[in-house]
């Protein structure tokens, strides 16, 4: 069977769904960040797939590199925030950070 566009999109979809699931359900802050990474990577796969099978140009691949860079920056920021949460709540369980409860 030839591996076509839809296979890659399917993979991207699975990755996205898994990442979304991680974001929504994990209690561990770093776990949520991992979920975000998964979502970003799923988007990357999407870009690459369309770049290879769709337009044939290399725009998608360049964009994917931008996304990787962004993901890295965002992961740095996010981890800094997690560090702040740890310093405030002595845990990285997000259910503990409910002081903003009205």
């Amino acid at each position, binding site marked *: 069977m030839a591996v076509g566009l839809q296979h890659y999109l399917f993979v991207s979809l699975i990755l996205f769904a898994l990442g979304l699931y991680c974001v*929504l359900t994990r209690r561990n802050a770093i776990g949520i960040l991992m979920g975000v990474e998964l979502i970003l990577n799923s988007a990357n796969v999407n870009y690459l797939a369309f770049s290879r099978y769709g337009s044939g140009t290399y725009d998608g691949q360049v964009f994917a590199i931008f996304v990787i860079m962004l993901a890295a920056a965002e992961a740095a920021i996010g981890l800094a925030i997690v560090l702040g949460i740890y310093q405030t709540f002595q845990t990285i369980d*997000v259910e503990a950070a*409910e002081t903003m*409860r*009205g």
Partner: protein
Amino acid sequence: MEHPISVDYLRWIVLLPLIGAVINALAGVLIQRSFGKRAISVIACTPVILAFVLAVRVLLQLLSLPPEQRFLLDHWFTWIDVGDLRADIAFLADPLSSVMILVVTGVGGLIHIYSTGYMHDEKSYWRFFAWLNLFTFAMLTLVLGDNILLMFVGWEGVGLCSYALIGFWYGELANASAGSKAFIVNRVGDFGFTLGAFLLFWTLSAEGHGSVVFRELAQHAHLLEGKTFFGVGVATVVTLLFFVGATGKSAQIPLYVWLPDAMAGPTPVSALIHAATMVTAGVYMIGRLNFLFSMAPATLHVVAWIGALTAFFAATIGLAQNDIKRVLAYSTVSQLGYMFIGMGVGAYAAGIFHLVTHAFFKACLFLGSGSVIHAMGGEQDMRKMGGLKKWMPWTYRTFLISTLAIAGIPPLSGFISKDEILWKAFSSEHGSPLLWLVGFAGAGMTAFYMFRQVFMTFYGECRADHHTQEHLHESPATMTYPLIVLATLAFVGGVLGWPHSLGGSNGFEEWLAPVFSHGAHAAHEAAEVEPIEYALMLASVGIGVAGILLARAMYLTKTLSPATFSEMGEGAPYRLIYNKYYIDEIYGAVFVNGTLLLTQLCAAFDRIVIDGIVNGSAALTRGVSWLNGLFDNYVIDGIVNRVADVTMGVGNRFRQLQTGSINGYLYVIVVGVVVVMVARLM
């Protein structure tokens, strides 16, 4: 009517006394302290004497003109100029006002000089002379003013000065009260005067010729003919109102009550104000407005009869008085009555002539009585006097001459003027024999009580106590010289108006003719002499002599006892006249107490009704504000609280969105993204 000649010196006649008054009023205390009373005398007497000189100049100037042109006008400046109403500070000198200013400044000047002697021991010397000068100013304004308003300024001014001078020694309550009484009674009269002026102006204004200037009124008075005011002729109403003013100022029935009380003032004041000048203002006013009075025969009738009744009535009271000044006061009221008889029968010149001669002899009498009082150390009761002619020869002689004049003994001036009036009362178309009879009876009584006064004061034994007798002396020259001048004038003054019946040409009447002949159908029985005039003349002299003889019998030779009369009819008539018919008491009970009762009624009304309304509205306001409070508390505050509660409630609901749970937030984000995507696809 000719145009008057324009001059510019009349204003000085009026202003000079004012200047004297102002200087003495403002700086008098200092001047008296630094330069003595002599300086005050000079400051006070000089203006009046200078004014007299100017008055003589006026006379000479008028004499140099033909009779129809004898009008001098000094128009100084515009005072009031509003619509129809034009009243300026302007002075008119015509034959009538020239006579008046000569009397005021001449007799006034003599009295000023007399006062320097009489008031010599007075501490407030400067104040006396300031008021005396101010009075002279006001009186001159009154007689020289060319319009009703300016005359009224003078009219009120003399009333004010009279009040101040009567109450000069205001430390005694009686003196101050007398001053107040004079002023208040005068004001009642003034009310009539102002109403008359208003009605006159209003009526003329409706005809298009509204004016208060005398010359213009004379021209346009005929427009009043036929006009009525509530059914009565306007001329009659206006003149009656003016006459009310005259009864107040000139002490006629019913407003004479202030004059006897006015004797509380210093004697020169009585002489000047209450004999020679202020009280004559009413007579002058009628003379000035003669053209109006001639249009209202009904008013003339009233004037003549009130004059006659006053003359008779006051004479009866004078019969029994024992105070030397009181006799003279009632005599003044009585003689003023004669002047009004003259004016009331249309014999305006005769009335004014009697004004002039009366000024001479009455001023002399008052000043003479002042001389007596001065010598007696302040005593005024004639029962304590007697035989004074031995100590006070000049006072006695001048007093005797003036008494002969007032008693109407020929050839003195009093006889000439009074007889002229009595003759006109008998013969004029406005007069009647009955009117003459009343005046005739009054003349008899006048002779009696005046000579009673002479005999009680100057003849017989001196009834004063030893101490007073030692101090009896003739008064100094400053006091006796004016007496001599006035007595001389009283003696020879008749020459001015010597009647046709006795061979004269009645220069006085001729002199005043230009003023009194405007439409007046007054005495024009000029050169024809009727024999009945001689009969009446003889009768007047007869009753005068009879009065003198009766007084002589009762008070000099003591052949007839006064008790014969005073005890007649159980003494009741005597008590009645001695107590002046209790008029003051009646007025007090009716008017004074009546007014006080009205005051209490008004006070009660104010307390019960007005305050009730005010307090009631306060209570109402409090009630309304209580309701407002309720509304505010329950409704307004309720709304505000409800809003707050709703906000709280809504806020509570929304608060619950904030779970603080990060997982929850993320979940909502995702759901939101899905919703947006679905919405975009649709």
